[in-house]
């Protein structure tokens, strides 16, 4: 899912945030994204900071639904992997098997569920595998070594290293915990390790990539979209990140 070798860039967009939201997906691809994370908005995004909360609220207020977002995606052609990001309740409400098949049907090959820790992941993990979707697990700075090993063993696609103890959202600096965690995760898995949460600038992306295999960038881009940036505008932003990562 993530190219081994180079430094991967995974930008995020909240599905349904604007009528033409898939243009952001295409812009990301054009700017050099290695994969694209699609947020399926949830009413109670407990791990998200203000920016993603607002993006989710706006999408829901516009009437966004999982089915609608997946249908939108079916209408475009994207050459890089798509990864869904959503909360556990949407997965369980449909049923993990149905939910994952639906993702696969729309060409989505990865799934991130931030409130589904490894201990609770078995059912979704199996359903995802059956549907050909990689259930990507998250590791946190406080995760102890034995859990880290388990996360490394059970994750698929890559391991999402949460850069800091906190919610999503832009930060002035990249927390030192990010590289420490990435190094620890890399020691227990052969999967690529991407750093996410608070990666806000090209410089931060470059720093993160020193210890990890790439970055996920979400709030920094969504802040721009909320402020009215066009697909063209964010293409420039993603291109700058791409350039920084090499």
């Amino acid at each position, binding site marked *: 899912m993530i190219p081994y070798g180079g430094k991967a860039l995974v930008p995020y967009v909240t599905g349904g945030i604007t009528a033409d939201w898939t243009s952001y997906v295409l812009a990301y691809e054009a700017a050099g994204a290695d994969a694209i994370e699609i947020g399926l908005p*949830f*009413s*109670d*995004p*407990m*791990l998200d*900071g203000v920016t993603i*909360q607002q993006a989710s*609220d706006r999408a*829901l207020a516009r009437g966004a*639904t*999982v089915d609608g977002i997946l249908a939108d995606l079916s209408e475009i052609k994207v050459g890089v992997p798509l990864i869904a990001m959503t*909360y*556990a*309740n*949407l*997965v*369980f*409400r*449909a049923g993990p098997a149905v939910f994952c098949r639906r993702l696969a049907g729309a060409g989505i090959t990865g799934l991130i569920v*931030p*409130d*589904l*820790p*490894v*201990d*609770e992941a078995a059912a979704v993990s199996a359903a995802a595998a059956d549907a050909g979707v990689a259930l990507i*697990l*998250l*590791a*946190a*700075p*406080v*995760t*102890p070594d034995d*859990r880290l090993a388990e*996360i490394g063993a059970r994750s698929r696609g890559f391991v999402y290293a*949460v850069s800091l*103890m*906190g*919610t999503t959202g832009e930060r002035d600096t990249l927390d030192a915990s990010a590289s420490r965690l990435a190094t620890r995760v890399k020691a227990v898995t052969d999967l690529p390790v991407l750093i996410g949460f608070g990666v806000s600038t090209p410089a931060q992306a470059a720093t993160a990539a020193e210890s990890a295999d790439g970055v996920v960038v979400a709030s920094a881009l969504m802040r721009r979209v909320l402020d009215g940036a066009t697909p063209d505008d964010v293409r420039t932003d993603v291109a700058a990140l791409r350039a920084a990562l090499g």
Partner: protein
Amino acid sequence: MTLMAEPAAGRFGDFGGRYVPESLVPACAELAGAFREAWADKTFRDELDHLLAVYAGRPTPLTPALRLGGELGIDLWLKREDLAHTGSHKINNVLGQALLARRLGRTRLIAETGAGQHGVATATAAALLGLSATIFMGSRDIERQRLNVFRMEMLGATVVPVTSGSRTLKDATNEAMRAWVADVPHSHFLLGSVGGPHPYPWMVREFQRVIGTEARSQVPSVPDVVVACVGGGSNAAGTFAGFVDTTARLIGVEAAGGAAMTAGAPGVVHGSRSMVLQDAEGQIAEASSIAAGLDYPGIGPEHAHLGALGRAEYRTVTDAEVVAAIHRLARAEGIICALESAHAVAWVLRAAGSADLPAGSRVLLTLSGRGDKDMVTLSEGADK
């Protein structure tokens, strides 16, 4: 049947669990271990029991409601959590968790609050033990429970208004969990009900068990029916714990506008799997109740389990029934209870004499709190 042991893997049948961000898993595990240990530690139990007695006013009395019971043709006993310090059962859980937080070396308590009773209780425990407290409260609830906001501030707590979503308890809980993630090493998240990730549903039920244990020793005989209001479900869980091994029917009463058991479906929110008000896709619905403490789309997982087993039954009452009930109890017994507690009373008023609660029934009702906080809401309603 008893409700004693730690649930294996934090599960009550199909419900419970620990659906939290990985960042919180170690803190939850640490807390579960600490509670397990403390609860088996006589020194800890003695200290808590001591505080409950000399500080919080336990045991609370069991009052025979002679006039109201007489009017309804039933024997009615009221378990008087309204007389506990800070005005509700919330203090039982809060003192327990605050002692645990201190034992874990935490210096800050984070809590969500709806009616403000849990926030006041948390601010109180923080003052008593010299901890700091940050309380998240929906801006809508801040408007309708101003009195409690003043109280929290006087106790030295910081009250943070939450303006997202429905601006009530659900959103305050999201925000409290966000604050917790960001300050795990110093903060204890002092959840106010039997929801949330393991060990909260188990731990909070154990801290509230004192209600049921006392009531069991106070009633002249095992009642036919044990009834309590249900928001998250902590006062009901604590009450039921004292009677689950008896023949008593257990009845939880939800707000019609927040009836997770009656109108919800299984779902995952705020860290555990339980019954949840939600739409077909899984978006959490906004509850709507005159009682800020019941204005919540979820319920603790053990209730979902008891309901699935048929060991407990859940009913709903409307806001109008609740307002009538609060007035009726006040005039018959001289007790102004909380809007939350009045849900249990409203069900008894409606059911008494029907097949659901035949004449002659012996009923134990937990009055979870007092109504001072609700006077403004009620008087504004009266003006309309």
